[in-house]
């Protein structure tokens, strides 16, 4: 029913805009980190938000570190497939999560849909997750590990303060 005082053409425009908004904001799955980072290393997943909500994700990952990431869309994503633009920087593989997650409001449960992303070499690449419920892109930045403490040698010259080399 069209509200009083709103011409039909305007109502149709509003309906299309609402539908477009729903398509933009609601038809993409959400991602979540499912494992912790090891001490002194990075494995941080951040949502990149825009006016319409989450537009993409970014992930900072230390070299040699892995992170499990789950995909949900009112429940575990269906037919989840993930690819990396440059597996030499970061590769992604399917994860076998046994945990059951609720689906909808009918009390059903299904295994969590997840992938594991692994940092291989410093650099930036894109991980693309696609599912029957939509897709998400994750910009992955792999950073090198911190230098071992032993390499920070302390040099001392006679009559001077210690100097780090």
């Amino acid at each position, binding site marked *: 029913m069209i509200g009083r005082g709103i011409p039909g053409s305007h109502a149709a425009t509003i309906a299309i805009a609402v539908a477009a908004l729903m398509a933009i904001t609601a038809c993409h799955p959400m991602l979540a980190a*499912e*494992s*912790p980072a*090891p001490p*002194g*290393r990075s494995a941080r997943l951040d949502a990149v938000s825009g006016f319409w909500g989450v537009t993409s994700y970014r992930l900072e990952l*230390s*070299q*040699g*570190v*892995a992170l*499990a990431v789950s995909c949900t869309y009112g429940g575990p994503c269906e037919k989840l497939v993930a690819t990396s633009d440059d597996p030499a920087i970061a590769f992604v*593989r*399917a*994860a*076998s*999560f*046994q945990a059951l997650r609720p689906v909808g409001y009918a009390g059903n449960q299904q295994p969590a849909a997840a992938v*594991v992303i*692994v*940092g*291989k070499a410093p650099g930036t690449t894109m991980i693309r997750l696609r599912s029957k419920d939509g897709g998400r892109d994750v910009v992955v930045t792999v950073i090198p*590990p911190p230098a*071992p403490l*032993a390499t920070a040698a302390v040099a001392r010259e006679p009559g001077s303060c210690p100097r780090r080399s």
Partner: protein
Amino acid sequence: MRPLLPSILLTGCAMGGGAMHQATLVGQCAAADAACSRRHPQAPIAIGTHFYPEVGTELAGTTTPSLVLESAAPDVVAVEDGALVARKAGASAVLISTDDRSIVDFVHVWVAPVTKITLARRDGERIQGAIALAVGEDVTLVPALWNGAQRLSGDGEARWTATATEPATAAGPVSILRDGSADRRRLRARTPGTTTITVALGDITATVDVEVVP
């Protein structure tokens, strides 16, 4: 990488639970071996040594499937013939996957250099002074690897030597016998005298004086 076969002869202790809470890496140690260098849980692996893991899963309603290990940073930790080989200081995820390469879990493994070696008896008691043996007796010594105050895990091919001080003969009063492991040795007292036993892994050494009495 290769499938890991479970062994009923070995029991272990957790090296680390998986980040996804579905699997563990367990060091292969006999239940009665208190000083096993692979036993210490959550310890970094010493550079240049091997860690032999048993992998178990904690999945409801299923036994452990055939699993393979894969290192995220092979220059830090390599997987060779089912063993983790520590190559350089750092950390690397060790991925635990099924045959179809889907990841069941992963554990971040740390590698550290050896800064100190201590010796212990096989029952785990640390050797802090000289050892006296009667002729015919023997004692098994196990080197423990450390990075500062941090105990390290891993099996290294340690070099064992004896320097006889009395009598100063080439044979010496003590025989150093292998017992099948890479690092442990059994010392057998043969003739009265004194000797110094030296254990070396790379440039790091430990010594203990042994006196053999009639």
